[in-house]
């Protein structure tokens, strides 16, 4: 199986739940377990929330999401054209947050890394940020495929 989609949506907090379900509905074609899908949804939430809060700083903007299904997993890209990250290594560190005043946990990237098999962060200050995440699902009985 090979399938792909691309979604652009407004950077609004209402759209975080929307983006999560879009990815879930797409990934559901691989008939993952509830756990596997929950992991992917959580990672998507973190990346989309970051784009809204940090990328566009709650201002207007468009978030680009794409997903590619392959035999045993999904690759997801979440991109914003926002302010970007100057020091990606620091940003990925557990507990690091540039907005402590918002009582953010600084654990977004750590969550993505834990719930996905691969996480790449590409960012250019002033240009935007692109997160590429990959998650493999365990082999499953094709009979139960939806």
């Amino acid at each position, binding site marked *: 199986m090979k399938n792909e989609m691309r979604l652009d949506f407004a950077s609004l907090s209402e759209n975080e*739940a*929307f983006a*999560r*379900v879009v990815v*879930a*509905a797409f990934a*559901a074609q691989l*008939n*993952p*377990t*509830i*756990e596997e*899908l929950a992991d992917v949804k959580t990672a998507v939430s973190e990346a989309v929330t970051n784009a809204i809060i940090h990328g566009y700083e709650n201002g207007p903007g468009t978030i680009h999401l794409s997903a590619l299904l392959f035999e045993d997993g999904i690759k997801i890209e979440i991109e914003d054209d926002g302010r970007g990250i100057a020091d990606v290594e620091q940003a990925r560190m557990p507990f690091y947050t540039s907005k402590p005043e918002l009582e953010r946990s600084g654990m977004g990237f750590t969550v993505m890394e834990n719930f996905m098999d691969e996480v790449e962060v590409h960012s250019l200050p002033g240009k935007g940020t692109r997160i590429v995440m990959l998650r493999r699902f*365990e082999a*499953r009985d094709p009979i*139960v495929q*939806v």
Partner: protein
Amino acid sequence: IGEIRRYLRDNNAIRVSRSLRDTAYKALQAREKLTNASGKDPTVAEIAKEMDLPREDVVFALDAIAEPVSLFEPIYH
């Protein structure tokens, strides 16, 4: 023993397809309950609130038991 447990767990892992149907049936029950209580068809948000789930999740689940997708398509195509 650990391996056996893992085997059992993996093989009993509930597939999303099944959990969606469960959620959908619960949503229909919630809808009926709310309809009986208020006398009118509840909205998706009211059902979601009753179930303590995001409304998008309710919508996704309901699609899993959606009646004929295309009312006029032959079933055997």
